[in-house]
């Protein structure tokens, strides 16, 4: 294996050593402010009452679910086009996080839906496409788990990730293309957000907190993945190296 294949991960480990404490601190502060604002500052919605507080989790989690897939898509391009050694590490460690955020957004969404719509789940375009995203994440994780060789698994998963990226625009625009129960976008709009600043600010702080959480966990998971590969290659070396002790075991047999 060429030297630079390992130089990059090693430099990466050194870099993250320095960045991670700051990231963790920033994440904790953002969550403290965000949770405080969303419980104590944000007013009740005139229609939804206090259930609007679910939105402060639900919306950031849903954004993160999509952003995480975007990160994986970029990483997959990195794997296939530039063959960067860290690209498939990044894609692999992002998948469980994406699955977790998607799960959170699905659960909080259905817990919001029960009092508001009268049912936990409807098969509308937005919900269904997010469910499909969830299945994609789990399928990718299963693919990575099943294939023994990480390089081959990384390439196979990269192809699947890129094909699955078609789902992202469907999720984003499903509320506009099909007339469904789920409310249309109210923050990410070309003509500016349509919700009141008192609600918008906690929402944005929570979104920032979730994003910081994602990057923190992503960097930590990437470090783990690099370690995992190191253990793997060292184990292969360990199996191949016949140690001197083994050489003496000869014909004086099973006594």
């Amino acid at each position, binding site marked *: 294996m060429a030297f630079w294949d390992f130089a990059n991960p090693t430099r990466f480990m050194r870099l993250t050593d320095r960045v991670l404490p700051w990231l963790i601190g920033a994440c904790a502060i953002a969550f403290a402010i965000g949770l405080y604002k969303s419980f104590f500052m944000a007013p009740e919605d005139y229609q939804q009452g206090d259930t609007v507080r679910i939105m402060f989790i639900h919306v950031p989690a849903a954004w993160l679910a999509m952003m995480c897939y975007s990160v994986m898509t970029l990483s997959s391009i990195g794997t296939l086009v530039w063959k960067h050694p860290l690209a498939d590490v990044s894609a692999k460690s992002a998948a469980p996080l994406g699955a977790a955020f998607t799960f959170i957004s699905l659960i909080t969404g259905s817990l919001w839906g029960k009092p508001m719509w009268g049912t936990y789940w409807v098969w509308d375009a937005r919900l269904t496409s997010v469910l499909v995203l969830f299945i994609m994440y*789990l*399928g990718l994780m299963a693919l990575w*788990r*099943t294939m023994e060789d990480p390089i081959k698994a990384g390439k196979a998963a990269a192809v699947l990730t890129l094909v699955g990226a078609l789902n992202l625009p469907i999720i984003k625009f499903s509320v506009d293309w099909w007339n469904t129960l789920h409310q249309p976008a109210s923050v990410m709009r070309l003509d500016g957000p349509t919700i009141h600043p008192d609600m918008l600010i906690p929402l944005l702080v929570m979104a920032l907190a979730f994003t910081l959480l994602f990057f923190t966990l992503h960097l930590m998971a990437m470090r783990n993945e690099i370690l995992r590969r190191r253990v793997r290659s060292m184990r292969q070396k360990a199996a191949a190296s016949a140690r001197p002790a083994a050489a003496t075991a000869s014909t004086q047999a099973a006594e």
Partner: protein
Amino acid sequence: MNGWVSALFLRELRLAVRVGGSGVVGVLFFLAVVTVIPFGVGPDLNLLARIGPAILWIGALLATLLGLDRLFQADRDDGALDLILMSGRSMELVVLVKCLAHWMATGLPLVLAAPVFAIFLNLDPVAIGAVTLTLLVGTPALTLIGAIGASLTVTLRRGGLLMAVLVIPLAIPVLIFGVSSADAAIHDPVPFLTPFLILCALSLIAAVIGPFASATALRFASD
């Protein structure tokens, strides 16, 4: 006497949980089946609530069959099956233990996932409980019946599809009583217990016939 049973059980469980993780993939397949049905029949929640137990049962049946083709084939491919046959242990018991471990690794996750998927299908709490209970009792029967098919097709390179064809007719009684007892719990006038007890009986019968039939088939397979 009991040492080897637990050794075999632990080995099977370890193999199922490590690389490959067939249990997780089974649940994923189950989820995919449940997701696909509303696209086919339309998103009408009342309709889905009515056919929900059937969807869950068919999904569980397919997911169980999908995971079964490697039950004996993996051991045959690397020569372990020959050694198991020569081990001096009762082959019927070996099959039973393998099935039990396989059910723990793939069947039980399906049962645990069923209540979650039932929410997608708009089932009410009583129906969710009933379906989960019937699946808990019925999926061991599916595994044990599937083991017969798995041992019959163990010598074939691509026996998975043939196995499904062989096993599905045998699994129909389980499906009938599983779905009908779940339905009985939802629609009040019909008694729940009658079909449920028949389902229990089917599982017990499968626990007797399955190991004997597949042990016989495996002995022939090594010829």
